[in-house]
C-alpha cells in the first residue's frame, strides 16, 4: 500500500512539474493557429511570422526597411526605361526536399504569385512577362515603370515565395506540403497546440552580416516552437511563468506586470502601426467632401488615442502618415490633423446641407482599441452636430460587411507602417473604399512610376497633403506594440514580424 502511494505521489509530482525542455528550444507564443503554411495565399501577420523561417523570397527588407537581396544575388539591374528587371539568382541553393533552386522554380513561383496572391494580383496587369535567362537568372518585363515592384517581391505576407516548380499545383490549387529554402523546415505540427520548426541541414546562408531580415540568417536555435495562444492574458502569464521565451501582441495593461517579472521583460515596438478609419467613397454620407472635412475637423485624435491605449507610452499623436525617421516622413498638410474643432465642423456640416442622416461607424471589439476610440469619437462628432450610429460586430462580420458599400460609412482597422506606401491599397480608386480624386490619382500614378527615391518622397508628401485635404482615409495616430521576451533571450530584433533564426538563450 505504502509503495503504491509513493508511486502515485511520484507520478503526480512528475505530472505537475513543467516538462523538461532542451536548452535551445525557443518557445514562441503567437496569437493563433496560422490558417496556412503557404504565405503566398494569406495576408495575415501570424502566417508571415511563422513561414518566413521556412520560405524565402527573392528580396527582403533590411533593418532600415530598404529592399535587400535574399535569393537574388543582388539588387536587380533595371533598364533605363524602368521596364525591364534582370535578376541574377544565387547559386548552390537547395530546397528542403533536396532539389536545386533554378530559374524555372522562380518563374513558376512568380507566375503563381501573380495569379493567386492578393499582392501579386495588384502587379499582374503591369507585368508583360517573366522569363528564365539561363538556369540562374530571370527577366521581368513591365508594361510601364512600377516602383513598388521590389517591395512587393520582398514582402513576407501574400509573399512572392519561391517554391520548387514540382510542388506548384495547376490552377488555383493549394500546395500539399510547403517546401522552401529558408533556415528551418516544418517539423511536427499539432494544430492549436504547437508547430515545430527544425533546422534545414542543406540551408545556405548569405555571407553579409545580419541586418534586419537581410544578410546572414542563422540556425541558432535547435528548434523554434510556435505555440498558438489566442488569449492575450494567457500569453502574458505563460511568458511571466517562463513557459514562453517570446510572446507576440500583448495587452498594453500588462506592461507593468511583465516589467516586474524576474523572468521576462517587455519589448515596446515603437511606431508599430496606425489605426485607420476607412472612409466609404462609393456610397452614403461621406461621398460629400464637405462632410468628410467636417468629420476630420471634429475628431479629437489625442483623446481618442488616450482612450484607446491609456498611457502615452503606447501612442503618439501624429498626423504624418509615416513617423519621423522614415524616408516617407513629411509634415505636409499636417495642420489639418487633430483640429478638434466642433464649431468649424458644424459650419462645414451646414455648408454641406447635412440633413441628420446617421454616420454609420462599423467597428469590432476584437481589437478593443478600435472600439474605445470610436466611443470617444462618437461623443465629439455628436457635439459637432453629427448623428452617429455605431455598428459593433465581431471581426468576421466586419470583414464581410465592409465589402458592401451600402452598409457603412466608416470602418475601423489598423495597419503596420508598411515599407512601401503603395502597398496601402486605399490610395487607389480600385480599393474597397473607392477613393477617386483626379489630382490625387495623378500624383499617385506618378508615385508608382517614379524610381528616384528623392522624387518619390516628394510625391508622397503631396499625396499625404491630398489625403488630409480631401479626407481620403483617416490616420488616427501612431501606436506602439507590446511584445514580451524572456530575459535570457537574445538576438531577436523588434519587428512587426519577429524572427528567431539568430536567437539564443543565455
Amino acid at each position, binding site marked *: 500500500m505504502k509503495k503504491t502511494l509513493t508511486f502515485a505521489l511520484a507520478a503526480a509530482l512528475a505530472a505537475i512539474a513543467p*516538462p523538461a525542455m532542451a536548452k535551445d528550444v525557443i518557445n514562441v507564443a503567437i496569437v493563433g493557429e496560422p490558417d496556412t503554411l503557404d504565405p503566398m495565399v494569406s*495576408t495575415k501577420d501570424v502566417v508571415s511570422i511563422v513561414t518566413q523561417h521556412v520560405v524565402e523570397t527573392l528580396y527582403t527588407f533590411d533593418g532600415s526597411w530598404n529592399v535587400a537581396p535574399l535569393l537574388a544575388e543582388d539588387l536587380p539591374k533595371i533598364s533605363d526605361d524602368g521596364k525591364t528587371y534582370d535578376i541574377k539568382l544565387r547559386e548552390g541553393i537547395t530546397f528542403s526536399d533536396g532539389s536545386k533552386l533554378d530559374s524555372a522554380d522562380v518563374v513558376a513561383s512568380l507566375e503563381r504569385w501573380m495569379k493567386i496572391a492578393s499582392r501579386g494580383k495588384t502587379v499582374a496587369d503591369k507585368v508583360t512577362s517573366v522569363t528564365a535567362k539561363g538556369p540562374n537568372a530571370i527577366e521581368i518585363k513591365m508594361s510601364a515603370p512600377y516602383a513598388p515592384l521590389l517591395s512587393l517581391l520582398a514582402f513576407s505576407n501574400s509573399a512572392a515565395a519561391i517554391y520548387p516548380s514540382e510542388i506548384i499545383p495547376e490552377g488555383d490549387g493549394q500546395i500539399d506540403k510547403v517546401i522552401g529554402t529558408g533556415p528551418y523546415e516544418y517539423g511536427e505540427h499539432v494544430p492549436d497546440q504547437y508547430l515545430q520548426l527544425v533546422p534545414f541541414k542543406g540551408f545556405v546562408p548569405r555571407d553579409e552580416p545580419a541586418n534586419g531580415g537581410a544578410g546572414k540568417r542563422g540556425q541558432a536555435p535547435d528548434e523554434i516552437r510556435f505555440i498558438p495562444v489566442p488569449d492575450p492574458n494567457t500569453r502574458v502569464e*505563460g511568458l511571466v511563468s517562463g513557459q514562453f521565451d517570446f510572446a507576440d501582441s500583448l495587452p498594453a495593461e500588462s506592461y507593468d506586470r511583465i516589467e516586474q517579472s524576474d523572468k521576462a521583460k517587455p519589448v515596446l515596438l515603437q511606431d508599430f502601426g496606425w489605426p485607420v478609419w476607412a472612409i466609404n467613397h462609393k456610397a452614403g454620407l461621406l461621398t460629400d467632401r464637405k462632410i468628410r472635412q467636417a468629420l476630420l475637423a471634429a475628431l479629437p485624435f489625442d483623446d481618442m488615442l488616450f482612450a484607446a491605449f491609456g498611457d502615452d507610452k503606447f501612442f503618439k499623436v501624429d498626423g504624418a502618415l509615416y513617423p519621423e525617421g522614415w524616408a516617407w516622413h513629411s509634415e505636409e498638410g499636417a495642420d489639418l490633423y487633430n483640429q478638434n474643432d466642433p464649431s468649424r465642423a458644424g459650419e462645414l456640416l451646414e455648408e454641406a446641407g447635412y440633413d441628420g442622416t446617421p454616420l454609420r461607424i462599423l467597428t469590432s471589439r476584437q481589437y478593443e482599441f478600435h472600439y474605445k476610440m470610436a466611443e470617444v469619437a462618437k461623443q465629439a462628432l455628436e457635439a459637432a452636430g453629427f448623428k452617429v450610429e455605431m455598428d459593433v460586430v465581431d471581426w468576421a*462580420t466586419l470583414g464581410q460587411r465592409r465589402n458592401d458599400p451600402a452598409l457603412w460609412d466608416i470602418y475601423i482597422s489598423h495597419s503596420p507602417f508598411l515599407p512601401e506606401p503603395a502597398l496601402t491599397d486605399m490610395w487607389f480608386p480600385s480599393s474597397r473604399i473607392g477613393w477617386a480624386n483626379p489630382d490625387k490619382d495623378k500624383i499617385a500614378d506618378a508615385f508608382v512610376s517614379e524610381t528616384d527615391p528623392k522624387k518619390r518622397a516628394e510625391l508622397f508628401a503631396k499625396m499625404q497633403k491630398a489625403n488630409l485635404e480631401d479626407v481620403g482615409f483617416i490616420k488616427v495616430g501612431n501606436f506602439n506594440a507590446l511584445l514580451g521576451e524572456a530575459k535570457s533571450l537574445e538576438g531577436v530584433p523588434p519587428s512587426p514580424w519577429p524572427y528567431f533564426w539568430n536567437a539564443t538563450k543565455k
Partner: protein
Amino acid sequence: MLKYVLNRLFGMVVVLFLVLTITFVIVRVAPGDPAALMLGPDATPQDAAALRIELGLDQPILVQYGKFLLSAAAGDLGQSLFFHRPVLSVLAERAEPTAFLALFSLIFSIVIAVPIGIYVAYRRGGAADQGAVSAAMLAASVPSFWTGLVLQRWLASDLGWFPASGYGGPGAGFFDRMGYLILPSIVLGIVNSALILRFTRASMLDVLGEDYIRTARSKGMSEGRVVLRHALKNAAIPIVTVVGLTFALLVSGAVVTERVFNIPGMGSLVVGAVLRRDYPIIQGTLIVVAALYILINLCTDLLYLLIDKRVRY
C-alpha cells in the same frame, strides 16, 4: 427496461436531428465570411468569392443542407474549412483533454462537496454549515474565468507549481499531458462543487428528518451507520442526478477554462470555429456534445436502478 432505453435512444435521434437543423440554420444566418477570414485583412472581395466557390459555400443553402443531412446520416460530419480534415477526426483529437478535464473536475467536486455536504447537513445550523453554505454561494457566484485567471497567476506564474497553460509539447507522455489539466480541473471543480455541495446538503437534510432515520437511531445504531448507510443511500438519487448533469455540463461547458489555460479541447475548438466561421466544426461539435449530453443523462437514469430497487422502467 429495454423498451425504455430504446425509446430514449429514438428520442435522441429526434433531438439530434433538431440540433443539426437549428445549428445549420443559425451558423449560416449569422453574418461573417469564412473565406474572407482565411485570406486575411488585405484580401479582395474577388479573392474571397473565389475561395467560397472552392469551399462550396456559393451553393444555395438548401443544397448545402441536403448534402449535409445525407452525409451526417452516413456518419460523415463533413470537412473542416480551416483544418482541411474530416470533422470527426478533428473532434476525436480534441476529446481527450476535454474528457479528462471534465472527469478530474468532477472527481475534485465530488471529493470536496459530497463529504462536506453530508457533514454540514448533519451539523445543520452550526458554524461549519453556515461557512460551507457561504463558501458555496461565493464559489457559484464568481465566474470561472476570474477564478482561472487568479489561480493561474498565483499558482502557475508566481509560485511555479503548475504549468501556466497548454497541453504538453512534442513527445509529451500521458502523465505529462494530465499534469497540464490539474490546475484547470481545480478551477472548474471549485465552481461545480458549489452546486453539488448544496444539493447534497439539501437532500441529506430532507432524509435526516424522515421517520426511518429516527427509527434507526432508536434501535441504537451508531450515528455513522445511520448517516452513511441509511440517510446517504436514500439521499443519493438527487445527488447522482446533479452529478450526472454536472458532468454533462462540464463536457459541454469547459469552454472558458480551456480558453484561459489554452487547452486544445472541444471547448476551445468550438470557440475558434465560431471566430473562423468554420461551419462544419461548429455543427459537428454541437451534435457530438448534444449526443453526449443525452447519453450521460440516460446513464444517470439507469444508475437509479442500481441505487434504488424500487425504481422500475
